[in-house]
C-alpha cells in the first residue's frame, strides 16, 4: 500500500470558532472482529491519511461497516462483539488506556447511515449537542453553530429557523445537520457509514460537495455501496469481500483511480465493473 504524502502546505480551515488540528492519521492494524463466535472480519490493515478521503467498498455483509465501527469504538456497543488488533490515531492505540473513551469518540466523529438528529432538540441545539455532551465550554456558541452549519453546507437553508425542531428537516438536511453536529466538536477524523444511502440524488450531491470541501480539514473515511460515489469523493479505496461462511477481508486497496481503472485482483475488477455485489 502506498499512502499519499501528508500535505503540509494545504491552507488552514476557516476556524474562527473551530480550533483543532487539520485531521488525524488513523490506522487499522490487523483488525479482526467477532460477533459471538462468528468471525466477521479478518486481518484488516488500512492506513487512513489526513487530507485524503478513504472509501471502503464491497458487497453487503463483507464487514466494511463493522470495520468502520471499530475505528471509533462503536463496535463494542454490541454486547457480543469482540475484536483483535489495534486502531492507531496519530500513533496512539484508541483501545489502550492512554486515550479516554469519550475523547476517542469526540476526536473520531461518525455520521450514520440513517440520519439521527435528536428530534426533540432545535436545529441549533443539535449542532451544539456535542459540546454539552463532552462538557466543553465555548465562548462564541452562536458563531460555532454558524461555522459548523456552513461547513456542512446547511447554513443557508436553516439560518432563519435555528430554533425549529430538527425533526422537521428533510432527510438530506437532517444528514447534513448530523455532519454539522459532528464537526462542532472539532474531530480529527470523520467516519461516514453510507451517509447517502437513504437520500435522494440532490441531497447526495450536496453531501458529496460537503465531503470534498471538508477533506482538507478533517480526515474522512466513507463506507459506500455506490461505486460512482467512491470514485467521485475518495482518493484512497479499499475493497472488502467475504467468501461464503468466511470472514470479510480486504482484497485490494490503493489509490481510487488505479483501483477502478487497473485493479490487480480479478474479484476487484468484477465488483467495480458491476458484475456482482
Amino acid at each position, binding site marked *: 500500500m502506498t499512502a499519499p504524502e501528508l500535505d503540509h502546505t494545504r491552507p488552514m480551515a476557516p476556524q474562527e470558532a473551530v480550533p483543532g488540528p487539520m485531521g488525524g492519521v488513523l490506522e487499522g492494524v490487523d483488525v479482526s472482529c467477532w460477533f459471538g463466535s462468528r468471525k466477521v472480519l479478518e486481518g484488516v490493515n488500512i492506513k487512513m491519511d489526513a487530507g485524503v478521503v478513504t472509501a471502503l467498498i464491497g458487497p453487503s455483509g463483507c464487514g466494511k461497516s463493522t470495520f468502520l465501527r471499530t475505528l471509533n469504538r462503536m463496535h463494542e456497543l454490541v454486547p457480543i462483539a469482540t475484536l483483535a488488533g489495534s486502531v492507531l490515531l496519530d500513533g496512539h492505540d484508541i483501545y489502550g488506556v492512554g486515550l479516554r473513551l469519550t475523547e476517542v469518540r469526540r476526536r473520531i466523529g461518525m455520521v450514520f447511515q440513517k440520519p439521527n438528529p435528536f428530534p426533540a432538540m432545535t436545529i441549533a441545539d443539535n449542532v451544539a449537542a456535542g459540546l454539552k455532551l463532552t462538557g466543553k465550554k465555548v465562548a462564541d456558541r452562536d458563531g460555532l453553530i454558524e461555522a459548523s452549519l456552513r461547513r456542512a453546507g446547511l447554513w443557508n437553508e436553516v439560518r432563519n429557523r435555528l430554533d425549529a425542531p430538527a425533526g422537521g428537516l428533510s432527510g438530506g438536511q437532517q444528514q447534513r445537520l*448530523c455532519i454539522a*453536529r459532528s464537526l462542532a*466538536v472539532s474531530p480529527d477524523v470523520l467516519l461516514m457509514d453510507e451517509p447517502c444511502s437513504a437520500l435522494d440524488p440532490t441531497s447526495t450531491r450536496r453531501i458529496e460537495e460537503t465531503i470534498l470541501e471538508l477533506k482538507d480539514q478533517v480526515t474522512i473515511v466513507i463506507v459506500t455501496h455506490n461505486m460512482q460515489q467512491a470514485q467521485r469523493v475518495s482518493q484512497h479505496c479499499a475493497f472488502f469481500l467475504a467468501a461464503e461462511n468466511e470472514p470479510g477481508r480486504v482484497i485490494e486497496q490503493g489509490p481510487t483511480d488505479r483501483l477502478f481503472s487497473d485493479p490487480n485482483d480479478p474479484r476487484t475488477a468484477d465488483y467495480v465493473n458491476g458484475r456482482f455485489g
Partner: protein
Amino acid sequence: MQTTDPQGSVPSDVPEPPPHADEPRKLEARLTDADRVYRAVVSSGAAATLLLITLIGVFLLIGAWPALKEAGFSFLTEKVWTPDGQPPRFGVAAMMFGTFVSAVVAMAITVPVAVCTSLFINEYAPRAVRRSLTSLVDLMAAIPSLIFAIWGLFFLVPALAPIEDWVVAQFGGWLPLAEASATGGSLFNAGLIVACMTIPITTSIIREVLAQAPRHECEGALALGGTRWGMITSVVLPFGKGGIIGGSMLGLGRALGETLAATLILSIAFEIKPRILENGGITVASGIAIEFRDAKEMGLSALMAAGLALFIVTFAINFLAAMVVSRSRSGAST
C-alpha cells in the same frame, strides 16, 4: 351476491356513486364478516369497561346521597368523623389530607427510585444480571400488598425509628415538618410502605418505555463523545418523558387507593397537621376499612360518600395524567 343483467347495468340496490363535488366525500367500505365479528367483540369489551365504571359511580352516588344531603358543603371541610352521633358530624377533609400526604410521600420516593432502577437495568447492568433483575422487579409487583404492609410494620418502621427520632430531635424545633411528639404510626411511614408497593409496577413500566429509546439516536450521542449519562439525559429521558409520567400516574393511582399499609401503620387520628413524622393520620381507603365494621345507617352512607370522593379524585388525576402523556407522547416529534 348481485349479478348484473345482460345489458351490464348496475344492479338496483347498489347505491349510485356520489356526484363529484369539490368537497371531502364520505368514505365507506364493505366489511368482511370476520371484521364485523372482531369489531363487535372489541367494542363490547370497551363498552363493558365503561359500563362498569358508570355502575360503580352510580352505586356510590346513590349510597352516598343521604350523607351528602345531611352534611352538605361541610362534607369537604369537616375533619371529624362521627356520622352516627347526635347530631352527625363528618367530612372527608382529614381523610383526603392523609391520602394526599401519604401519596405524595410515596411518589416522592417512587419516581426517582423507579427511574434510577430502570436506567441501571437498561444501561448499566451487565447483560447477565439484566434479565434476572427485570424479572425480579416484575415479581416484586406481584407480591401482595399485605406482605409489604406486615414487613413495614414489623421490620421497616422499627428499624427507621432511631433515624426518625434523630431527625425530630435535630430539626423538630424549627421545622414544622419534622416536629413530632411520637413517631412510628405516621403518614410519612405509611407513605414509605406504600412506596414499596408502587415502586415495582412503576419501575416495570418506566423500564419498558425507556428500553424503546431509539438506538440510533443513542449511538449518535455516544459518537459525539458523550458519556453514557450524557446519552441518557439527551436521548433516553426526553424520549421516555411520557412513559415516566404514565408509569408514575399508575403508581399514584395505586398509592391513593392503598388500604392495608395505611390501616396497619397509621395510628388513627382525624386531623390535619404538617407534622408528617408524628403519629396519627387517616386516609380515605383506610378510614373506610376501619370505620366500616361499626358503621350504622348514616355511617355507611358517609363512608360511601368518602368512597365517591376518592373515586372522583382518582379519576380526575388519571384524566390529567392522560392529557399530560398525550401532549408529551414519547418520540412524537421523531
